[in-house]
C-alpha cells in the first residue's frame, strides 16, 4: 500500500485563504482518486505561507479491473446501427457476442477495463485539481496561462512504499513534479530532496518550517503567554488574529515589547484595534492596572541579535501609528468637550441613503422615535432622545474615520467627555447591538430605547422606499435589524404594538407587510429555540399578533402543553370537533355557533361536557385576559377527558335533528374555547 505526498510550492499564499485551500486540496484529490477506483486509509492537508501539502496513507496501488456489458442492436438490424455501436464501444464485429434476447438475437459488447496504476491516476487527478482549484482569486504570471493564487514554483508528487519512493510523472505548464522543495526563505533556502511524508515534515522542520498551521498556532499561543507571564501580563485572546498570524509565518518567533507610556492613556479598544489592524500584534494586558501595556509581534525568523532589530523596527512603526491615534484622540476629545456641535453639523452633508436623506435627517427621526418608545421600555424620555441625538456623532470623529469598527465605543467616551450622563453615553456604545444572533442584547432602558428606535427607523425607512430584502440580497442588513428588534423586545419583555410603532416611525411604510416580515423573522428565531413553525402559525392569527412578547408567550405555552399527553389528545379532540363541524356547516350551509342546551343532553357524557365547558370557558377567558397563557392552556387541557368521553359515547349525527343541532352547537363551544388560545386547525399532527 503506497503513501502519497503532494506539495504545491508557491509564492506567499494569503493567510486568510489557507484553511480553505487545505480542505479544497484534500477534497479534490481524494474525491478524484476514489472516483477513479482507488481507496486510501487516511489523508491530511497542511499549509504554510509558501506551500500547500497533502499526505495520503495506504493508497491502493492500482484501481480494480472492471467489466462492463453493453447491449447493442439486434443482429438483423441495419448495418448503420451496428457500425454506430462498434464506434461507441471501440470494438470490432468479431469481438461482439450474439445472445438470445426476448425479441431475438442481439449483439452484446463486453468491455473489460484493466485496472490502472495509482501513479497514472494520481497524475491525472492532481493536474485536474491544480487547474480547477477554487481559489477565491487567482492570477497568471510571466508568459504562462496557468492560474494559481500566486506564482507556482514547484510540485512534489511522490508515491512511496517499502521498496522506495518514485516521483509521479507529471508536468503542468513547464512545472515538472519532483521530490524536492525548499525550506525557510531566509534561514534555509536550499533545495531539499524528500522520500515521503515523514521525511518531508522532519526535513522541513530542520529547515525552519513548521508544516502544521495548528502547531504554529499552538507555538505562538504558548510562547506569547510565556513572554507575557514573565512581565506579569496576560495576552488578550484573539483566535482570528492567531490563525491569521499563523498563516503569515513558517517559523513563528514571538517577540514582546512594551507600549510607550505616552500612549497608555489611549482607550484600550483603540490600542488593541490599532495594533491588530495595522500590525497584527497581540495585545498584552496588565491585570493589575487593567490596561493594555504591551504587545506581541510574531516574526518569521531567528536572527543573530535575537530579534532586537526586528522588535525595534516594530516598536518604531507602532509609535508612528499610535502617534496618529493619539492625535485623533486628543482632537476628538476637544471636539467632544465642546459639545460635538461640529460633528452634528458635519452629518448634514453625509448621505445616509439618497431617498432617506442625510445622517442628520436620520438622527432627527431616531430621536423622535426614541422619545415615543421610551415609556414602553421604562426609559427616561429626555435621556432617550438625547442619547439618540448623540449616539452617531462619533461617525464624524477622526478616530472612527480611521477605525470604523470603533463606532459606538468611541461614542461612549466622547459622550462622557461632553459631560453627558452615563446612561446616555452607554446608549451611544450599545445602540448598534445586538448585531448578530449571538451578540449580547442591551438591557439598560435608555440603550434599549435608542437601539429599538435606530433599527425601527431603518426598517420602516427602507420599507417606505420599497428597498426590501429579496432572496439572498439584503444589502442594508434589514433581516439582521429585524432580528435585533425581536431580541430586544423579547429579552427585555417590552410590550409594544408594532403596528402602531411602525406608523409613528413612518406612516408611509406598509405596516402590514413589515409586520409579516417580522413574523417571518420571528419564526426563524423561535425555530432556533425549538418552537415548531406550525405552532407559531396557529398563534399568528390571534388578536394582538403585533405584540411579539404576547405572541411568544402564547406560542411557548401552547408548545409546552402540546408536549404533554393531555395536550396531544386534546389536539385530536379539538381537531375532530372542528372537522365534524366544518363538514356539517358545509352540508347544511349554516354556522353552528350558539344555542347548545343541556336540556337536550341524552347521556352523562354530554352533560359532563356541558358542565366542564361551563367551568372552563370563563377560566380560560380570564386567563387570556390576564395573559396567563399557561393557565389558559391548562384550562383547555382540562377538557381533554370530557371531550374524549363525549366522542366515545355520543353519535353526533343523530336522526333526531334537534339532538343533532344541539350536539353540533356543543361542538362549536369546544371550537370557540380553543379559539380563545390559538387556531388549532393550523397545528400539525
Amino acid at each position: 500500500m503506497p503513501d502519497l505526498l503532494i506539495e504545491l510550492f508557491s509564492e506567499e499564499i494569503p493567510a486568510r485563504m489557507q484553511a480553505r485551500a487545505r480542505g479544497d486540496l484534500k477534497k479534490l484529490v481524494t474525491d478524484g482518486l476514489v472516483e477513479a477506483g482507488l481507496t486510501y486509509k487516511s489523508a491530511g492537508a497542511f499549509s504554510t505561507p509558501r506551500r500547500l501539502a497533502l499526505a495520503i496513507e495506504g493508497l491502493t496501488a492500482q484501481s480494480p479491473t472492471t467489466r462492463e456489458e453493453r447491449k447493442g442492436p439486434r443482429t438483423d438490424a441495419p448495418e448503420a446501427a451496428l457500425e454506430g455501436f462498434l464506434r461507441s464501444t471501440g470494438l470490432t464485429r468479431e469481438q461482439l457476442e450474439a445472445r438470445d434476447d426476448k425479441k431475438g438475437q442481439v449483439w452484446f459488447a463486453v468491455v473489460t477495463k484493466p485496472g490502472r496504476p495509482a501513479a497514472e491516476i494520481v497524475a491525472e487527478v492532481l493536474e485536474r485539481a491544480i487547474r480547477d482549484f477554487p481559489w477565491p482569486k487567482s492570477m497568471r504570471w510571466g508568459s504562462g496561462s496557468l492560474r494559481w493564487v500566486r506564482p507556482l514554483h514547484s510540485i512534489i508528487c511522490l508515491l512511496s512504499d517499502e521498496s522506495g519512493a518514485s516521483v509521479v510523472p507529471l508536468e503542468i505548464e513547464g512545472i515538472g513534479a519532483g521530490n524536492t522543495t525548499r525550506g525557510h526563505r531566509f534561514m534555509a533556502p536550499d533545495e531539499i530532496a524528500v522520500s515521503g511524508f515523514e521525511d518531508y515534515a522532519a526535513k522541513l522542520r530542520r529547515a525552519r518550517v513548521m508544516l502544521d498551521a495548528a502547531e504554529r498556532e499552538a507555538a505562538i499561543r504558548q510562547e506569547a503567554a510565556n513572554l507575557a507571564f514573565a512581565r506579569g501580563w496576560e495576552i488578550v485572546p484573539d483566535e482570528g488574529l492567531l490563525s491569521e498570524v499563523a498563516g503569515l509565518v513558517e517559523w513563528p518567533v514571538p517577540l514582546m515589547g512594551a507600549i510607550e507610556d505616552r500612549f497608555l492613556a489611549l482607550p484600550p479598544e483603540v490600542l488593541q484595534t490599532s495594533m491588530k489592524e495595522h500590525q497584527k500584534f497581540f495585545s498584552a494586558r496588565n491585570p493589575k492596572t487593567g490596561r493594555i501595556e504591551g504587545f506581541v509581534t510574531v516574526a518569521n525568523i531567528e536572527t543573530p541579535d535575537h530579534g532586537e532589530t526586528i522588535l525595534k523596527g516594530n516598536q518604531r512603526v507602532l509609535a508612528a501609528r499610535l502617534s496618529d491615534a493619539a492625535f485623533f484622540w486628543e482632537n476628538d476629545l476637544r471636539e467632544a468637550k465642546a459639545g460635538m456641535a461640529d460633528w452634528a453639523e458635519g452629518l448634514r452633508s453625509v448621505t445616509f441613503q439618497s431617498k432617506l436623506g442625510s445622517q442628520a435627517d436620520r438622527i432627527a427621526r431616531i430621536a423622535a422615535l426614541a422619545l415615543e418608545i421610551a415609556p414602553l421600555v421604562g426609559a427616561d424620555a429626555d435621556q432617550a432622545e438625547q442619547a439618540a441625538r448623540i449616539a452617531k456623532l462619533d461617525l464624524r470623529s477622526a478616530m472612527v474615520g480611521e477605525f470604523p469598527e470603533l463606532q459606538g465605543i468611541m461614542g461612549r467616551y466622547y459622550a462622557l467627555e461632553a459631560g453627558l450622563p452615563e446612561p446616555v453615553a452607554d446608549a451611544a456604545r450599545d445602540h448598534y447591538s445586538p448585531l448578530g444572533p449571538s451578540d449580547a442584547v442591551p438591557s439598560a432602558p435608555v440603550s434599549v430605547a435608542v437601539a429599538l428606535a435606530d433599527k425601527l427607523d431603518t426598517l420602516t425607512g427602507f420599507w417606505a422606499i420599497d428597498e426590501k430584502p429579496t432572496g439572498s440580497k439584503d444589502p442594508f442588513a434589514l433581516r439582521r435589524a429585524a432580528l435585533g428588534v425581536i431580541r430586544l423586545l423579547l429579552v427585555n419583555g417590552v410590550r409594544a404594538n408594532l403596528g402602531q410603532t411602525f406608523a409613528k416611525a413612518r406612516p408611509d411604510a406598509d405596516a402590514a407587510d413589515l409586520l409579516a416580515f417580522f413574523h417571518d423573522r420571528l419564526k426563524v428565531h423561535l425555530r432556533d429555540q425549538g418552537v415548531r413553525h406550525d405552532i407559531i402559525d396557529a398563534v399568528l392569527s390571534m388578536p394582538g399578533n403585533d405584540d411579539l412578547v404576547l405572541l411568544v408567550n402564547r406560542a411557548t405555552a401552547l408548545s409546552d402543553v402540546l408536549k404533554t399527553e393531555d395536550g396531544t389528545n386534546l389536539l385530536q379532540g379539538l381537531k375532530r370537533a372542528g372537522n365534524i363541524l366544518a363538514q356539517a356547516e358545509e352540508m347544511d350551509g349554516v354556522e353552528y355557533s350558539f344555542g347548545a342546551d343541556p336540556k337536550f343532553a341524552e347521556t352523562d357524557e354530554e352533560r359532563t361536557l356541558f358542565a366542564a365547558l361551563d367551568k372552563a370557558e370563563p377560566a380560560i377567558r380570564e386567563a387570556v385576559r390576564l395573559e396567563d397563557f399557561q393557565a389558559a392552556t391548562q384550562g383547555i387541557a382540562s377538557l381533554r377527558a370530557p371531550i374524549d368521553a363525549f366522542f366515545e359515547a355520543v353519535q353526533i349525527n343523530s336522526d333526531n335533528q334537534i339532538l343533532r343541532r344541539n350536539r353540533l352547537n356543543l361542538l362549536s363551544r369546544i371550537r370557540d374555547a380553543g379559539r380563545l388560545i390559538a387556531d388549532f386547525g393550523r397545528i400539525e399532527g
Partner: protein
Amino acid sequence: MTSPKDNQTAKPVCFQDVILRLQSYWAAQGCAVLQPYDMEVGAGTFHPATTLRSLGARPWAAAYVQPSRRPTDGRYGENPNRLQHYYQYQVIIKPSPPNLQELYLGSLAAIGLDPMIHDVRFVEDDWESPTLGAWGLGWEVWCDGMEVSQFTYFQQVGGHDCRPVSGELTYGLERLAMYVLGVEHVMDMPFNPPGSPIPLSYGDVFRQAEREYSRWNFEQADTGMLLQHFKDAEAECDRILTAAETDSAGRRIPMAHPAYDQAIKASHLFNLLDARGVISVTERQAYIGRVRALAKRCADLFVTTEAATLQAEDAA
C-alpha cells in the same frame, strides 16, 4: 541573482544614496533606467513606461524614480510621514521573471536591509486602480512591521488582460529611506551626505514647497478653472483618439501617447478638485469613471498600434 549577502556594504547615509543604490541595483539587473515622466501624476504606475508598456506582447524592463503628487495628503510639511509631493521608485518587468521576489529582496539588501537581521514578509494586498481600469494580485512587503513596498502582478490594465503579465514593484522612497536611515521626521532626513560642503536635509529642499502647495491644494486652487481644465483634457483626449489615423503626409500615425497625456492630466485635475472638497461622494464615482474611460481608450489604441507594428516587423 546575487545573494543579498554579497551586496552588504556600509549602510546608506542619505536619501539620495538610497535612490542611487536602487538605480544601480536595477540597472545591474538589466532594467532600462528611465527618468521621471514630465507630468503631474499620483503614482509611478501612471508613467506610460508602466501603464502603456504593461500592455501588448513586447518584453519590457524599466526602473525609474517618479515624483508623485497626492494633494489630499498635504500636511503643510508638519506631519512626520505625510507629504503631498513625494517620490516613488518604480520597477516594471514584462514578462515577470520567475525570480522577481529574489530580485526584489536583493534590492533591499542593496540599500542596507539585510533579510537575515530584519523580518521581511509578503502580506496579501491586491492592487486596483479604478482610474486606470487596472488590477493585479500581490503583496505589500513588510519589513519589521512596516510596509516598504508594493509588489504586484498586473492582471489587467486599461481593461485589457495582461499577456504576458508584468511584475511591478513600487517603493515609497521617503518612508523606506527614513527607516534605513533611522530618521523620525521626513524633514530631518539628510538629502545629500551630511558631510557634504553644503549638507541639505529633506526639509531644506521641500519644507517651503510643502507648506505652499498644501495651502494652494486645500484653499486656493481655482476650482472653476480646474473643472474647465478637466473638461478640456477630456475633450482633447477624445479628439486625439478620434482623429484620422493618417497625417497630412499620408503616414499612419495613431496617437496613443499624446492622448494618454490628457488622461493623466484629467486624473490629476480630479485629485486637485477632490482636495478642494468640491466633489461629492456621488460625483466622485462619475469622475473616476470618466478618467477610466479615457485611459481604456488610450490602452485600446496602444494595443492596436503595437499589434500593427509587430505585424509589420514580422512581414519585413
